[in-house]
């Protein structure tokens, strides 16, 4: 069992499992699966300053979000220590394209070591991917009212047009970053 679990989980196992978090969270406490609410709650809890967007009852309404992301962190720890992290067997085309960007031709771990290390933070690539990437994720998820889980799973599964628009826009943004921004700056 443990050995089977240590292999990468195929999409037809992981996808339905992820989908089941939607009814599970609704049954546990009428919560909608979505992670970006936690970023707003963290701001409200941690960052000082009087901003209307963060003046809300975060303890009452989004404390569950913080517990959920704390769990996600712990889940990452357990996955890595008990089950082991795998290096994705990505397509040869993608591997070549990444190598062409000068990010190494070896796929080891979940993210390229040439970019996603503390040392690489001082390089243009590291700063762009790690720091700017994160900033845009936080800004965009809050502005767009959700992320891959909130819009892509909960929103689409409840057939909401705003979520469909958001997912199309997310994809357009991702294509722009992949085919325009990365070749330009890397």
């Amino acid at each position: 069992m443990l050995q089977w679990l240590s292999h990468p989980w195929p999409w037809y196992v992981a996808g339905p499992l992820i989908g089941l978090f939607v009814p599970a969270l609704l049954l546990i406490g009428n919560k909608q699966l979505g992670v970006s609410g936690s970023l707003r709650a963290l701001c409200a809890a941690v960052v000082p300053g009087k901003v209307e967007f963060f003046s809300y009852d975060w303890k009452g309404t989004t404390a569950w979000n913080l517990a959920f992301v704390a769990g996600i962190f712990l889940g990452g720890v357990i996955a890595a220590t008990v089950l082991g992290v795998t290096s994705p067997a990505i397509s040869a085309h993608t591997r070549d394209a990444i190598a062409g960007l000068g990010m190494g031709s070896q796929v080891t771990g979940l993210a390229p070591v040439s970019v996603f290390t503390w040392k690489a933070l001082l390089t243009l690539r590291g700063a762009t991917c790690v720091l700017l990437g994160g900033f845009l994720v936080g800004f965009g998820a809050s502005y767009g009212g959700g992320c891959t889980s909130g819009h892509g799973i909960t929103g689409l599964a409840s057939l909401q047009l705003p979520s469909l628009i958001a997912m199309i826009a997310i994809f357009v943004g991702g294509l722009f970053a992949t085919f325009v921004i990365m070749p330009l700056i890397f």
Partner: protein
Amino acid sequence: MTTAVRSRSQPFSPATARRGDAQQLRLSGLVPYALMGTLFGIVLVKSEVVSWYRIQEMFRFESFHMYGVLGSAFFTAFVSLQVLKRLKVRSRTGEPITVPPRSLGKGYRYWIGGSIFGIGWALSGACPGPLFALAGSGVTVYLMTAVTAILGTWTYGYLRPRLPH
């Protein structure tokens, strides 16, 4: 649990925010969510959807993996929601289960916010959930991504009155 029910049955208003309602934060009530998060984190890492490489593959249309995960997650969630609705199931806390509709408005926020998010997702290879899973799995530099994501959220909150929605 009773405090949790009260907090949700009260519609949100600035007045409740000002009162703080610190006693509503009951740690024991949060345990189920922490457990669900833990399972979620394990699935995210073991299915490799948190991988920068997998995200690149998706945006380059060179693998079915991400589409398979997102598509089957959508399908399972959709069927589950229909079943819950038809059977009029209530949550553990006794409330009718609802997914509040989002208002479209002019739709600017979804187009612009979504595109910005997409750029960030492709660059960092992580969306808000995976950020924390990645940091936990040992790629600790993603803690910095989490920090800048919080800064980005704060910047949005600050600029919000001036942005089109």
